[in-house]
């Protein structure tokens, strides 16, 4: 009992120490396997994850090099580029901090309360993250715009209006997009605390304050840096949000500057420089987060459903408020988009439906690729494959899709025509772009799997496909489903790289823009509903499949 208790209360257990406390460590483990527990293996083994990571790094850095090489080098940045860099860092840091902090009470409330429709709500609250940006902006404007619900209410109450245009709009939109991701990741952190720990806490008569101190804070300490980093990186490469809601060129982000260098000046050298700056920021942020993050080390549990104790009193009201506020903030924009677009959904022209089918097939393919790559990377990382593998897995997050697309275009143009490349390249790029998100969910689970079952599996000589089938897939089904769902939904809503290669086979987001460009705003909102529904359905199917 004393040993188990230490596993709960020690804030920073050494991994070998924590492992030695576990009841499920077979005593027959060979000395070599015990060594393996103490840290990364000394002997270098090439894992599939190494190959995936090498491929990713080559694709992302290689395309950057190709772009720079095509124009004979990098060019210097302008005064406006530096301003963009400052604004980018500032808004990303603020958005990440707000998203992570606001997500904690919501995730805690969802973790410890049970009510009818909770499962549905958890899924629904994930929706904004996978919404195509253009659809989300429509929704946010319907709620927070000049004629939106919020300002109508403020006017009705005789209060001053708020403006969604300007830096505050950028932050609002980023929190809207990333609060769901943060809630989801933190909620997984809560669920990863083994049920036994809560039962133990209950048997020790822990007050909510004690649980917070001994269980929740160590968990948050290990999860939050990753959450913050993920949101920070998403906001670092934000593009459309800044341009639609930023109010003016003051809210230019680096990604936008890349687009402008490419479009306005056709200055590929500057685009490549900016691309490098973005990657340097990513690596810096990654190192920072690695330095801050501390593994929680709760040890293995028996997989009973973890239901943290649900304290009554004011905490109950607080939790209800947190859930209601998050639901209102995250769901009303979706409802208003749906209400606006639904009436014309049935009369959408056939070409839109064809594009929708094409997008679905591409999204599912992207997701399959992403899940396979993600699994390989996460398993390699869990087995101590080195930081560069994780860094490579995070690279796509800050790789500019425009630089990536342009680089691939330059590299592949002698092998195939752009039309032939359009769909495969889009599928591959989308799969890569989704990797960092999938990895954030998968790495902790894979690490726990390795720590909790690695030795057992080794002692049973479980390896290769058998290990994958009997141990890895069943244990990781949940985060894998989540990763696949994210990848499918993000691919569904992506407009990015296809515009460069755009062929005669438009995707649904491209169709949406075509409708808008033809003045057909009502049809565009119907297409937006279709896009949103399909993104959501894909996510749901994958995520459900994982549970």
């Amino acid at each position, binding site marked *: 009992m004393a040993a188990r208790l230490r596993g709960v209360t020690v804030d920073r257990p050494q991994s070998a120490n924590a492992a030695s406390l576990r009841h499920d460590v077979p005593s027959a483990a060979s000395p070599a396997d015990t060594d393996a527990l103490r840290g990364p293996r000394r002997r270098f083994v090439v894992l599939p994850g190494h190959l995936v990571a090498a491929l990713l790094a080559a694709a992302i850095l290689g395309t950057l090099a190709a772009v720079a090489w095509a124009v004979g080098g990098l060019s210097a940045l302008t005064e406006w580029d530096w301003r963009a860099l400052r604004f980018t860092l500032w808004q990303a840091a603020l958005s990440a901090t707000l998203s992570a902090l606001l997500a904690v009470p919501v995730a805690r409330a969802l973790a410890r309360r049970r009510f009818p429709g909770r499962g549905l709500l958890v899924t629904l609250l994930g929706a904004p993250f996978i919404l195509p940006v253009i659809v989300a902006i*429509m929704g946010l404007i319907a709620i927070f715009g000049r004629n939106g619900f919020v300002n109508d209410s403020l006017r009705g109450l005789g209060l001053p209006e708020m403006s969604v245009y300007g830096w505050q709009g950028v932050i609002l939109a980023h929190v809207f997009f990333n609060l769901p991701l943060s809630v989801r990741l933190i909620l997984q952190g809560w669920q990863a605390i083994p049920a036994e720990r809560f039962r133990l806490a209950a048997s020790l008569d822990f007050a909510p304050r004690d649980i917070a101190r001994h269980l929740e804070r160590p968990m948050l300490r290990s999860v939050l840096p990753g959450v913050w980093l993920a949101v920070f990186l998403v906001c670092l490469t934000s593009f459309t949000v800044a341009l639609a809601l*930023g109010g003016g060129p003051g809210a230019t982000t680096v990604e936008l500057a890349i687009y402008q260098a490419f479009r306005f000046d056709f200055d590929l050298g500057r685009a490549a420089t900016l691309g490098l700056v973005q990657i340097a920021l990513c690596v810096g942020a990654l190192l920072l987060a690695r330095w801050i993050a501390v593994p929680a080390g709760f040890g293995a549990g028996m997989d009973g459903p973890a239901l943290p104790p649900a304290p009554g009193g004011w905490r109950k009201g607080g939790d209800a408020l947190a859930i209601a506020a998050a639901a209102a903030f995250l769901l009303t924009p979706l409802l208003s988009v749906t209400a606006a677009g639904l009436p014309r959904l049935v009369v959408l022209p056939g070409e839109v439906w064809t594009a929708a089918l094409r997008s679905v097939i591409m999204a599912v393919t992207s997701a399959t690729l992403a899940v396979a790559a993600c699994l390989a990377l996460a398993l390699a990382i869990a087995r101590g494959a080195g930081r560069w593998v994780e860094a490579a897995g995070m690279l796509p997050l800050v790789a500019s899709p425009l630089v990536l697309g342009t680089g691939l275009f330059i590299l592949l143009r002698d092998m195939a025509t752009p039309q032939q490349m359009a769909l495969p390249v889009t599928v591959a790029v989308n799969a890569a772009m989704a990797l960092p998100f999938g990895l954030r969910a998968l790495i902790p689970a894979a690490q726990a799997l390795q720590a909790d079952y690695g030795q057992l599996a080794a002692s049973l000589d479980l390896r290769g496909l058998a290990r994958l089938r009997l141990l890895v897939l069943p244990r990781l089904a949940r985060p894998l489903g989540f990763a696949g769902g994210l990848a499918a939904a993000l691919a569904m809503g992506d407009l990015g790289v296809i515009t460069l290669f755009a062929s005669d086979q438009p995707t649904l987001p491209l169709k949406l823009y*075509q409708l808008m460009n033809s003045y057909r705003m009502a049809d565009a909102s119907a297409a937006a509903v279709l896009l949103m529904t399909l993104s959501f359905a894909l996510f749901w199917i994958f995520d459900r499949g994982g549970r």
Partner: protein
Amino acid sequence: MKIVLIPALLLASPALAQDRVLTVYASDYVASEWGPGPRIEKGFEAICDCDLQFVTGDILPRILMEGEGTEADIVFGLNTDMTARARASGLFAPHGQDTTGMSLPVAWSDDIFLPYNWGETAFVYDETRLESPPASFDELLEAPDDLKIVIQDPRSSISGLALLLWVKQVYGDDAPEAWAKLAPKVLTVTRGWSESYGLFTEGEADMVLSYTTSPAYHIAAEDDTTKKAAIFPEGHYFMAELAAQVASTDQPELAQQFMDWILTPEFQKTIPLANWSLPAKLPVEDWPQVMRDLPRPDKTLFYSEDEAEALRQPALDEWLRAFAG
């Protein structure tokens, strides 16, 4: 890779059994079923015994990247303010058309880039929401700051760039002051025209930077006569969309035939109601009624290619400074 290619093959459109293929690089909206593309394709295929294939995307960056190895035979949808860089690439061949007697408000003597439609930038408003719109550019600058307009970023949008040149031509060296007055009225700056126009139709903005011909869409397609373009006596900036043939084409005859076809009445008649812009060469009596009824500015402003290219960067810096505050 297989897993990628199988669905890609499933999706590929059936290849047409045509030996002669004319590849036309076009802006994205052109080839959509709501743009002029399908009618152009049908019309040309009826006379050329060939297969016209649109390839859509960012035309200029793409063709500059591809250089002489490009598959394009024709580029369709370049803009007047991008021609300097396109010309400097040396990738294009003369169009060989007689450009006298065009229905353009400016004289056209370019022997490479051929306009197929045109329009002017204008601020569009909804008369039910804005009862007394500014009657001139000056009035717009002096209007109270709660008159909200949406414009496009000149670095990512061609109409945004046109606004930059419009202000420069009207206000010259005073352009920075003009921008300083306009900036507080700018609700937001969007990447492209469509996002701006969406904000306007949602009722977020009172006026949107668009075209003199925009109201025609609402009248013809929606029977809505409340959308108007504010006509300013200072003049409106001219924009045309251009076609050119690629010098390295492997189908020189077809490409020339296409260029020859652009200014014919048959082609020009498809423009107004598919592109929502004015035809480049068509007598006014052949325009659709809705286009003939639109109020026309008295004065059209336009910079030559060299002037526009020289002004682009300084005007952009002025604009950025006005918003940097």
